[in-house]
């Protein structure tokens, strides 16, 4: 009898104990914090506003921000290496302009898509090459890229161009039903990009080198890693993602607009930071950046549900959140080093 007693006790306590004892690796802490924040905000909104608690609220945030997720994923690669890409907002605008103008001249949709994606990647490649081989600060180079891309928008057209192409419009009006709720094809694209990015970062040598370069570029070089290819590669990825985000944005707005996406690079950076990626590089997860985008989107939902709040509250909240997260990161990194 006495021999059995502990077994029974073990059985009774093992599961909760296992959960209690389970500690995720420290690198997940910032992301968990972001997820907790997201859940907390969702809970608060559900209590406060009628109808907020519907899953559609979250799905709509996804629908309205799918392009931003793609953008943030590309930005995460760059920031993980310790760089920054300020050109992404302008490249989004440029992509919408190229898409709209080529479609207007009668190009086929697949050709347009390929052209846009190529343009973005090549822009990224050029910036990456300059950053690596001339050893110029990424901040400066991508700032120049930002002006260049914005300028090219005006070269293409001074006015906004509507998109009437059948493929694009049907993609824009398409929805995917999930029970009583819906998402758009753009959301699927964003999620696929997210999954691919996570796989590349964690399961390929390229991905691990991205983290190594962010940890210490000098060490990575001495370890014989392909530092040059990796550093240039992340800007190509960011350029590609910007172009893809541009395509999604043009579908979302069904137009090409040269003043569009102004400041969107800052939204992307904010999402990445809120998602727990260190601006100094070497630490962070793409999943975090996606949750970061959701947090930003949810703030907007708050505003629209409330109706009395001015939209400036979005900016103020983002500002406060960003500060809070950088402070949390500061405390966090101080404790682990």
């Amino acid at each position: 009898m006495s021999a059995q007693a502990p077994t029974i006790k073990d059985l009774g306590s093992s599961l909760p104990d296992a959960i209690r004892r389970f500690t995720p690796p420290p690198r997940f802490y910032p992301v968990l914090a972001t997820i907790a924040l997201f859940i907390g905000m969702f809970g608060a909104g559900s209590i406060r506003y009628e109808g907020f608690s519907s899953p559609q609220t979250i799905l709509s945030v996804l629908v309205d921000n799918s392009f931003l997720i793609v953008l943030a994923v590309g930005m995460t690669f760059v920031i993980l290496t310790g760089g920054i890409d300020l050109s992404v907002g302008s490249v989004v605008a440029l992509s919408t302009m190229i898409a709209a103008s080529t479609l207007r001249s009668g190009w086929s949709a697949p050709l347009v898509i390929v052209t846009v994606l190529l343009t973005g990647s090549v822009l990224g490649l050029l910036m990456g090459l300059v950053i690596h081989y001339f050893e110029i600060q990424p901040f400066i180079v991508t700032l120049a890229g930002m002006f260049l891309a914005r300028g090219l928008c005006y070269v293409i057209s001074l006015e906004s161009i509507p998109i009437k192409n059948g493929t694009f419009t049907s993609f824009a009006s398409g929805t995917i039903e999930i029970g009583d709720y819906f998402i758009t094809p753009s959301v699927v694209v964003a999620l696929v990009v997210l999954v691919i990015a996570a796989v590349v970062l964690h399961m390929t040598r390229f991905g691990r080198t991205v983290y190594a370069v962010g940890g210490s570029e000098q060490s990575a070089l001495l370890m014989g890693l392909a530092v040059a290819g990796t550093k240039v590669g992340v800007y190509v990825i960011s350029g590609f993602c910007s172009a893809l985000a541009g395509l999604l944005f043009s579908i979302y707005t069904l137009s090409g607009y040269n003043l569009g996406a102004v400041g969107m690079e800052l939204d992307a950076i904010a999402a990445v930071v809120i998602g727990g990626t260190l601006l100094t590089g070497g630490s962070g997860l793409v999943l975090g950046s996606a949750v970061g985008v959701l947090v930003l989107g949810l703030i907007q939902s708050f505003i629209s549900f409330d109706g009395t709040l001015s939209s400036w509250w979005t900016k103020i909240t983002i500002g406060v959140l960003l500060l809070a997260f950088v402070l949390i990161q500061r405390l966090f990194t101080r404790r682990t080093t």
Partner: protein
Amino acid sequence: MIQMTAEAAEATRTEPVVQMSGVSVSFPGVKALQSVGLTLRAGEVHALMGENGAGKSTLIKALTGVYSIDEGTIIVGGEPRTFHSPAESQAAGISTVYQEVNLCTNLTVAENMLLGREPRSFGRIDTRAMNRRAGETLTRLGLDIDPKSQLGTHPIAIQQLVAIARAVDIDAELLILDEPTSSLDADEVAKLFEVMRTLRAEGVAIVFVSHFLEQVFAISDRMTVLRNGQFVGEYLTAETTQLQLVQAMIGRELETLDKIEQAAEEHTVKTQGAPLLEVLDLGRKGSVESVDLQVFEGEVIGIAGLLGSGRTELARLLFGADTPDRGDMRMRSKGTKLRTPRQAIDHKIAFSSENRRSEGVIADLSIADNMVLAMQASRGWLRPIPARTKDRLVKKYIEALDIRPTDPNALMRNLSGGNQQKVLLARWLITEPELLILDEPTRGIDIGAKAQIQQLVADLAKDGMSVVFISAELEEVLRLSDRLVVMRDRRKIDERANEDVTVSDVLEIIAGEVRNDA
């Protein structure tokens, strides 16, 4: 042993693995290497010797493609080769541990060991296999480190071991180890040597750089000596005495060795009056258990203990670099809780950390700026040090520590490893503290300079400064300290006046404790 030598002789007759001849490398304003040769043979350990700044690391980097050579030839496996990057030399079978630990602290131990060579299945990195393989290599080196732990959470010595493990895991024809033992204890060194012997027997050529002469004589078959960037000669270890080697390295007669002997002074008991620093029950969870300690004016306290015994952690607590969660500290009988280094500096405590790479060196500042950093901080940023005073102090310490180059405006990043260490030491000496805590101050410093530094510490103590001296090198601790504190398992296990204590006594104290526990 006899068999080994025979094997080495056999290998001599075959073609060298690497032959460098007439190699020159220059940096703006410095000729780091002038027409230097190096011949490395399979199945031989080749020691590369020379003072700080002699050009050892530069020669290695010229071979592995970090630096490009101005002139000369490099023949690898019978063919002339020029590597343009470390990746190329690695692909050609040259595996290198560079002088400073060059790993990524944000990644795990296993990732650091296998970066660029991760086992893959279906194109994806197989994390399980990676951790397993890293674990196997670590076990082979006799190391008990969790491959999944983040590298940055380990002390610098463990990081050095991981760097070695990474290099050993690469199936190389040539293994280069640039000062791999600088922060290791006798135990780890013995393990490393075992591995090196095995590799040598398998026919690997090994380059070994160290400032510990005993180690060099214990492991190497052949030596090449450099001085001021020039080739002095190649010697067979078995036919060379320590004295001949030192003369070849410094190019002068005996005086340096004499100096070392002189530094071994009598130790006087100085425990009168009130202590300068009194520590009661000081501790921090997971770092050091309750320690009591008294430091008197003009006294040198040596802290001995193996790697992981808590010696560095104790130093960090004394300085407030880590916050103690129990106990009391009194500086001159005033109760003080040191919560930050800033407070410690205000109490005239200085701390030269073992981790010079991440905590000390500011690579893009000049020697002079690096030196006055701590002094400036203690004065507050609003009271700049007068240029005259600054010049005078900087000059004084460049001379006292024989720092090369002697130009105060030379950039820190361009100094050899040993000279960087000297600048960091000067940074704290300049503040004229009442209590100086030195954690591995002579790491990577050549024997001549080591004697100078030891002399300097002894002189400072004579002038009334108290010193807490930590070093993995027990001889050095014994030579300098008046009182000895022995640490083990994060506890202080012994304290005694340093009268006729020998290295084996200390080892016995440490080992004795083990026996008692068992």
